[in-house]
């Protein structure tokens, strides 16, 4: 009996055009990774070098872009480009943190629910459906309502909201894998559950989960920006991009660069993550034509 994961995917239906499709797909992945790496690279650079110190207020109030200050300064005289780089740390940190929280909690809960049977399974399905009925941002707002606005709270809140989605996906995937013949065979052969999970279930569901987590990372970045924009995320003086956009809207007519740069940075990072997810999906699941 073959346990090669490749054999799990049904063969591509006749009439699809795998070659041409594949070329387009990797283009997604490459562009996505480039965009993400540009942001990640800038963030890494920001740890060794910044144009100005984060709290250097020597730039003068609301200096227009150009000269020393690529994007101008904020009202305290801090360099906006420096702020933008630091905002990148928060954006990436949110993405990584929320994905870590959501991934670990979601996959564990999903695995448990996936192995549950009968009424327990029904109950798990209903609970997960309900948790998903709380949209990410609302759940995050709720948690922020009690725990207070901070980056940690925001990450935790977004991660928790994400966990429900990941858990539901994991549950469905686990059910699919468990329904396959070779699992039955392994069980009949007396292989222990932990071994089945480690050897058969996880490797089989990992690609789809990976794709989903990449998508969720982009959503997490957007959610953090929205929370910060509403004043419920990263508190000032930390320069979250959402926060920068909030501050910049007062001067959108006089200093448009401040209202454009963080928005563009956000879009670049999120598109990068989405394209990466698309590309990964096409790599792991060549049947899907994107």
């Amino acid at each position, binding site marked *: 009996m073959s346990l090669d994961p490749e054999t799990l995917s049904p063969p591509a*239906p006749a*009439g*699809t055009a795998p070659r041409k499709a594949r070329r387009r797909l990797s283009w997604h992945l490459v562009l996505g990774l480039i965009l993400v790496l540009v942001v990640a690279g800038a963030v890494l650079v920001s740890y060794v070098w910044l144009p100005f110190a984060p709290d250097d207020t020597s730039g003068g109030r609301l200096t227009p872009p150009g000269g020393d200050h690529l994007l101008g300064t904020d009202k305290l005289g801090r360099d906006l480009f420096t702020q933008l780089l630091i905002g990148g740390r928060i954006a990436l940190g949110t993405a990584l943190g929320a994905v870590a929280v959501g991934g670990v909690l979601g996959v564990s809960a999903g695995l448990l629910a996936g192995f549950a049977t009968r009424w327990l399974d029904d109950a798990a399905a*209903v*609970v997960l*459906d*309900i*948790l*998903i*009925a*709380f*949209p990410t*941002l*609302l759940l995050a*707002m*709720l*948690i*922020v*309502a*009690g*725990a*207070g606005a901070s980056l940690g709270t925001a990450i935790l809140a977004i991660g928790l909201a994400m966990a429900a989605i990941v858990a539901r996906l994991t549950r469905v995937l686990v059910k699919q894998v468990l329904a396959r013949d070779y699992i039955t065979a392994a069980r009949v052969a007396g292989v222990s559950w932990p071994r089945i999970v480690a050897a058969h279930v996880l490797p089989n569901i990992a690609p789809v989960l990976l794709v989903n987590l990449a998508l969720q990372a*982009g959503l997490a970045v*957007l959610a953090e*920006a*929205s929370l910060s*924009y*509403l*004043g*419920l995320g990263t508190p000032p003086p930390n320069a979250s991009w*959402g926060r920068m*956009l909030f501050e910049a*809207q007062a001067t*959108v*007519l006089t200093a*448009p660069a401040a*209202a454009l740069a963080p*928005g563009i940075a*956000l*879009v670049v990072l*999120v*598109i990068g993550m*989405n*394209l990466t997810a698309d590309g990964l999906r096409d790599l792991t699941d060549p049947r*899907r*034509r*994107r």
Partner: protein
Amino acid sequence: MIAYLLRRTAILLGSLVLAAVVLFVLLRLLPGDPANALLGVGATPEQIEAARRELGTDAPLATQFLRWLADVATLDLGKSLVSSLPVGPEIVARLPVTVPLTLSAFVVAVLVAVPVGVLAATRADRWYGPVLNAIAQLGIAVPAFWVGLLLITVFALRLRVLPAGGFPPDGWGDFGAAAQSLVLPVVTVALVMSASLIRYVRSATLDVLGSDFLRTARALGASPAQALWRHGLRNAAVPVLAVLAMELATTFLGAVVVESVFALPGLGGLLTRGISQHDYPVVQGVMLVSTATVLVVGFLGDLAQRLADPRLRVRP
């Protein structure tokens, strides 16, 4: 079908109760004393104790929950801690903004997304198929509040053709002004919403385009358009119907954020204010109403899907 309806209704009711529990527990687990919010700066410990008694927060959690559930069952959502006004009417007063905003944004998004998504799939081989797809990709990555900000800058501040925000004092009594003030918010939410819908529609259409039955129809002499119209769209609609319910919930969420950009007196404003003022009954009320709406919409979405797909009508 009847059996399914009963079963699904039971699940809906169970979900509503469970959602209430989750909401209640979450809000109680969180730190912060509602009595503080009630009294503000200058309260003595005795006053705080009295306030706790008045709020009922000195009772055991289970008692508090049952009391609350009983109140909710009679449509009493409690009183705001800050304004001491009842929460229910406050929520109802906000609906004339949030409901039209959410629904029209949703309708606009669907009206844009369906043709564009189908086009992006069927014309994947022409130049504009990928372009449409790229635009949708961009739309997904753009935060709604930023779109709102840019639209305000262009249409309200520069071109002066639409109001920058606010809602007329007479509400819908002044229909023209009310409609005007919702144009930019609706466009904002619809733009962002349609982006993700386009991708769903496109992907569902692509799946259908590669399907055997479409090929059969073509092989038996149907033109591409006939085949797509008679067999493709119906089949593509099934997975799209499943996400529409979720999308409607997301639209509502987009409305929450966008309301604050456009200074609209909707549920979003109420919720953000409730959160920043630690006004638990308000937060609880708004969350309960929105969660219930999402659950009911999900229920309707499931029913619609079941009606559209005969394979789901018999339980396997």
